[in-house]
């Protein structure tokens, strides 16, 4: 058994989906319905994007990343900040909002995994997420919110946790 990774090595995609749905519903209420999106394995996120990542380290090691379509990120930010419809969210507003988004998803993923662990502050970038070459994709969700794509992924260190 020693060569086999323990079962708890990665979150179940059903759990990741439920966590993500909870975040969307809490922020957007009935408008927060996320739909699945069929994307072939291995394809990079195909949208002008914002990306936000948070790192979990301790009893379990992993990186939770949320990538969002530009329009979706701005729409979400407008809702979170309750900006008037005619007011455009600034880049700094979007960075703040998507950072909080990944913080909520990441914190809940952390609770599903063996602890105790520490959650990093979110790192946000305009553009696609860059993944370290020594990490492996453990779980990925492709979803659609109001016709715009969003991706949530979990990466784990490839060479084992330490």
């Amino acid at each position, binding site marked *: 058994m020693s060569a086999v990774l323990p079962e708890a090595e990665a979150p179940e995609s059903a*759990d990741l989906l*439920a*966590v993500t749905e*909870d975040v969307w519903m*809490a922020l957007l209420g009935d408008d927060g319905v996320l739909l699945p999106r069929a994307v072939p394995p291995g394809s990079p996120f195909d949208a002008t994007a914002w990306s936000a990542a948070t790192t979990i380290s301790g009893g379990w090691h992993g990186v939770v990343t949320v990538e969002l379509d530009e329009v979706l990120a701005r729409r979400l930010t407008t809702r979170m900040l309750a900006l008037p419809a005619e007011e455009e969210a600034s880049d700094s507003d979007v960075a703040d909002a998507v950072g909080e988004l990944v913080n909520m998803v990441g914190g*809940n993923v952390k*609770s*599903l995994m063996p602890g105790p662990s520490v959650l990093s502050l979110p790192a946000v970038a305009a553009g696609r997420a860059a993944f370290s070459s020594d990490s492996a994709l453990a779980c990925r969700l492709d979803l659609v919110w109001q016709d715009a794509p969003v991706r949530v992924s979990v990466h784990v260190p490839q060479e084992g946790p330490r």
Partner: protein
Amino acid sequence: MTTSTAFASVSALVRRETSMVYDEGKEYLVEARLNPLAAARGLGLEEYVARLAFDADERRKVIDALTINETSWFRDHTPYQAFTETMLPALLEGRQVTRRLRIWSAACSSGQEAYSIAMLLDQHLPAGWSYEIVATDISTAMLERVRAGRYSQVEVNRGLPATSLVRYFTRVGRDWEIAERLRERVTVKHLNLAAPYVGLGTFDLIWLRNVLIYFDAPTKADILRRMLPMLADDGYLLLGSSETTLDMPADLTAAWQREQIGRVPAYRRASARTPLTPSLTSTGA
């Protein structure tokens, strides 16, 4: 089938099987709860309703979907406060010999009322006492949830004190599971409140909150009449904050004596508490 005939047919179904009344004006509620069921079958709402006549499984799901009460931990606070401060001490006083309490959570939904009571008893019941909470509901799906004692993060976030969360629950994946020692005190039973109460025994306290509103006046009166022998002589009946026995037939208003406990009206058995003298028995009720 049009939307209005679909609504009429669903409300007739629910009434026939549960005696609960879905009047016109509740269309939005029926629609909101049935749309997901219809969608799961790949059908429109009207098509789905038309299919119910032949499909007992789907009928069961509709009954479940339409009879689920909104619930939360320690709903309305005050009844729980009245329970620990007034009712519980009085009940303990009268049961020094048996040292046992039986409580009925009628229309228990997902069990948050039953487990709220269990948490309070765990804290306030003196050593050497035991208790049983009987949780009944018409929805078998809800009874399964009570039995499992598992609640989502969204559910434990609402109204449950954080001290109770960490004291009585354990995280199991995304859910929180209530402690075994509370779960084993809660007995789950399938029961339609409009049908006979068989094999339940009697109770020291009956929580019948926020469910009478779903029944028509004759059924409501019938339920309250049949609740009388279910309650111990010195027991208490609790109704929802918008419910009362005052609009009931005279015999019921007289049989249920209202006793104000702080801000909470409790109902007690009048006949049992003020025995009729022989000279009065001949006048009848």
